[in-house]
């Protein structure tokens, strides 16, 4: 095993290179992924290395890209699609939820869709509108898809290869905030030895509170755990990694020990993935819960302009506040509407 220090973007690049080298049927499709190497340079150098038939600049149409990927899957290919930014995936939504997600079930297993859909995701980078979306709910709710999100360069490389090797379609979220974060990467990990794509990782053990997150907020959660340690609370942090399926066993096992759960994510709260985690953990760990699970999330608003994202994206303070809440150190303060008399009468 040889490791290198790579950024998360470079880890992805290494993972793609390995996947292209390992399997002739892996093809990359996307806008500006060729000469430019993608707007985040994740595909840098790959078209030069593997040629324009395997690293393919597509016309500017995301539904077209996904539809094409579906046809290539019929022909035995394993397309890896790059959506340039999270906000541009919605024009391809029908091809993803009506076709990609359903084709294997529709054909009773005759036509798998081994498509990986890479999506640079979430905010915190001061970007323009539609460049900071957290659309995970839409895909986690869609049966037939798998959804993963990476939090470090090694996972970037390995999980991406696992996603490409998987015969199911995988939505692969790349947190933009982490593209430049560095770490040690072994780009040639034997996938047979790697932990399964769907397994959560306990990235920091603790006794009093379980914090579940993924992507860029794993780091925030670890920071919060450290800050809370000074305040005398032992916080366990779980990197969920896979959002669909998600590792409810691992989370439930942890919550049974700690009795307290905080979920941190950036997408809106209402029917966010946090709602699922809280609901499921309540079902499974009801007798063990010392307090209601707490969600620290983006607000129920369109992602705000860049100058305001600090008030939207969960940060260290808000995660600590959530931990304090679940510990009963500050009131839960759930938003409550006081209905008018007329409304109550209704």
């Amino acid at each position, binding site marked *: 095993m040889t490791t290198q220090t790579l950024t998360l973007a470079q880890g992805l690049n290494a993972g793609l290179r390995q996947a292209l080298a390992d399997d*002739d*049927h892996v*093809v990359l499709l996307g806008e500006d992924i060729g000469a430019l190497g993608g707007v985040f340079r994740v595909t840098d150098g790959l078209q030069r290395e593997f*040629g324009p*038939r*395997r690293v393919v600049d*597509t*016309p500017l*149409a995301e*539904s*077209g890209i*996904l*539809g*094409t*990927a*579906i*046809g*290539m*899957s*019929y*022909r*035995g*290919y394993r397309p890896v699609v790059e959506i340039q930014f999270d906000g541009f995936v919605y024009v391809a939504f*029908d*091809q993803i939820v*009506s*076709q990609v997600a*359903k084709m*294997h*079930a*529709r*054909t*009773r*297993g*005759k*036509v*798998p*869709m*081994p498509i990986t859909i890479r999506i640079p995701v979430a905010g915190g980078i001061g970007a323009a509108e539609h460049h900071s979306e957290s659309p995970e709910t839409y895909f986690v709710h869609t*049966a*037939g898809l*798998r959804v993963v999100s990476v939090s470090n360069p090694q996972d970037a490389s390995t999980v991406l290869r696992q996603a490409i090797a*998987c*015969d*199911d379609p995988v939505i692969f979220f790349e947190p933009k905030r982490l593209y430049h974060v560095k770490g040690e990467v072994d780009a040639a990990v034997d996938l047979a030895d790697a932990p399964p794509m769907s397994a959560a990782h306990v990235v920091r053990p603790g006794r009093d509170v379980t914090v579940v997150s993924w992507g860029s907020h794993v780091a925030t959660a670890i920071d919060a755990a450290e800050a809370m340690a000074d305040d005398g609370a032992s916080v366990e942090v779980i990197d969920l990694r896979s959002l669909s*399926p*998600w590792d*409810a066993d691992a989370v439930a096992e942890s919550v049974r020990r700690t009795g307290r759960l905080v979920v941190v994510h950036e997408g809106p709260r209402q029917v966010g993935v946090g709602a699922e985690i809280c609901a499921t953990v309540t079902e499974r760990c009801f007798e063990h819960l010392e307090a209601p699970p707490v969600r620290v999330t983006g607000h129920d608003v369109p992602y705000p302009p860049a100058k305001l994202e600090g008030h939207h994206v969960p940060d260290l303070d808000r995660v600590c506040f959530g931990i304090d809440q679940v510990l009963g150190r500050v009131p839960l303060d759930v938003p409550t509407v006081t209905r008018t008399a007329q409304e109550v009468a209704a």
Partner: protein
Amino acid sequence: MPSTTDPRTRRLSRAGHDSSVDSAHGGARDHAPAPAHPAPAPDGAQTGDGTVRLIDADGVRHPDAAYDRWVEDVDHAALRELYEDMVVVRRIDTEATALQRQGQLALWPPLLGQEAAQIGSARALETDDFVFSSYREHGVAHVRGIAGADLLRVWRGVTGAGWDPHEARMAPMQVIIGAQALHAVGYAVGILADQETDERGEAPGSGATAGAAPTEAVISYFGDGATSQGDVAEAFTFASTWTAPVVFFCQNNQWAISEPVSLQSKVPLVERARGYGMPGVRVDGNDVLAVLAVTREALHRARTGGGPTFIEAVTYRRGPHTTADDPTRYRTSAEIEHWEARDPVSRVATHLRSEGALDDDGEARVQAAADAVAAELRAGVTTIADPSWQDVFADVYAEPHAELEAERDAYARYLDGFATTEGGGR
């Protein structure tokens, strides 16, 4: 059926034929959104100049300098086969409609009137070619060898795909209007990619020889209404700039449920092609021979590196949109009569008889073949097994999915509960 014609006959299509922006095919429309459904104009505008037609509504064969060569091999015997195909699929359609009325099928979208468009185009295909169709292409499916129960399975509501797409080399029917046009392009791009892989000496199963032009091609069927969907336009762009070996076969049957084609376009649909850098050809979709000719030409272009072609087959949906539709709400019986007079099936019979190539005995044999297929269909529907509750959870994922399996097992335990209580539930 005879195989494709001589590749040396590769020629340009009629893409450049004359038509002007102002000559609306559905008659002039004022600039109001949605006037009350102007009916398609009679013959002239709909199958006027520039439309390829080899056998007219009266069964008269007209020579065509450009297209005769594509059907040189179609002798009387071959034409009789095409005729039989059409009679058979019409019978399939009648039978399935009846089965729906009897409650054996949940729904059925009749193809009545579109037999020539479907048979002529499908008979132009090679076995290895791949079809991505809409929901009404029972005739195409029949030609692909899909018969009996497999054809009805979906419409009985037991599955999402009645056949193995790889075996039949035809994807399951597509309900989302236009989505399949992109799938066809992707498959065609895969053919190109295979060739390059072949050149590298690692063939993944394509029959193409190293360095040669593609020998497989793809056809995508969709309707006149579908041309308004963004996906279809994107498919044109992708296919064109990538020179993908695909044929876009549009059955302009004049209606998208209750909406006339004039609501989708002011000009003949064939005009779309040129603006996307591909040839377009308009054909009398009720003339099986002409449809065969233009489709062969287009497939040949695809196979020889010439890229996509758009075919507009002008035809008519004589039945309801589906068995759930009531077309009397939006169109006249005069219109239907107009198109009955342009029947795709009878014109071939007339032609064959006039040539002495079909007599009463021959006709009887054709009808007997149709009777046999109909009987097979009726028998087939009763053999379709109901799915089991486990199928709800089956095949959602290709790889093991412990979470969904657990969900299935919990449901199994729930069902088991009824077995232990008398009566099985409340």
